[in-house]
């Protein structure tokens, strides 16, 4: 539930950011963070909740992808 997914900011305008989740481009709410294009953010429930470093973003993205794959396999 508090799962938050890392994404890279592509562009930002009026509190909305276009972000890249490992290839999926989406728009998220960016009113809780100060970010620029190129920054990595943690996205939870359609909202960027914190800025993160690229290295951590990669680790977390890999881990979540693995957890998701397993959950899907077993369904």
């Amino acid at each position, binding site marked *: 539930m508090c799962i938050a997914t890392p994404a890279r900011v592509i562009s930002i305008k009026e509190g909305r950011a276009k972000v890249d989740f490992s290839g999926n481009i989406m728009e998220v709410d960016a009113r809780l963070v100060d970010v620029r294009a190129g920054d990595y953010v943690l996205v939870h429930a*359609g909202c960027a909740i914190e800025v993160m470093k690229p*290295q951590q973003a990669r680790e*977390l993205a890999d881990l979540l992808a693995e*957890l998701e794959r397993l959950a899907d396999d077993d369904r």
Partner: protein
Amino acid sequence: MTTVEGMLKLLRAYDGPPLDIMEVCGTHTAVAARSGLRSLLPQRIRLISGPGCPVCLAAPAYIDKLCALAQEGCIVASFGDLLKVRGSGGSLLDARAQGCAVEMVASPMDALAIARHNPQRTVVMAAVGFETTAPTYALALRSAQEEGIGNFRLLTALKRLLPALEALCADGSVDGFIAPGHVAAIIGSDCFTPLARRFGRPFVVAGFTPENMLAALCTIVQKAHTAFAGNLYAEVVRPAGNAKALAVIEAYFEPGEAYWRGLTQIPASGFYLKDRYKQYDAGSRGLHGGQERGDCRCGDVLTGRLSPVQCPLFGGVCTPQNAVGPCMVSAEGACGIWYREGAAYDD
């Protein structure tokens, strides 16, 4: 002790009294199950799951109220996991099967978009979650106000982490806590210091890699029975948290008594809309109890008193395909995670 082997060696060398260490967050539960962390620990160190799944905590009365709102003709918007949780009657999915308007959304802003496109209907967002999610509802309300969208409501079952941890500490059975990384990103790592001091227990904020959880366990074991608060997820979690998120929570919500399955009612452990925003509230206060389902032991699972496999219904009567309790339904519920991962059947 930076290598995994070094950390495991340290844990296995532990020869003090048995320690029960709680991972509070459902994602930590999933990482522990996935990595087989529990089976690597020596017998004296037990990793138990905590109340970190808001979907699992929701009271039957809350689900019943959502279903009633749907039956009255509201459009009810909810995150996916909650749809399957049964109240004392059915679930939101059952309500949808009976023709009610129930929509699955990925964010409160999606629910607001439904309200924008259906001005003649009342749209109720099922607002569950911890401090991580609370600001996202507040932002949706802010947008509703700015745009003059008057048909948007929240039915809140929002939870504040610290009062529940306090209740678990007062109960005395947990020796240390792996604090949830993404709640901490909002409330800050400093929040755990007063609890650590008051109860003489270690709290360590951890990220979500198995290595990070292992490092948190080592820290907790080394600091067992002392007042210690640490942060191993400092790249994301700042000492004072996210000031903007805290400000927006504070602007819309106030603390109030809330119901936790397994812990019953805890003062100030929920967030409710402030009085001046009551026109956006769908009747959230007082939805405390309700009829729990028969033999489900979710309350004991959520407080670490039982591990999922100790529930007599686990895996037989209760499976993800035919879940009896919410802990089996939710992706973050301990029963479902243990079932899916075929987790270490060793407690």
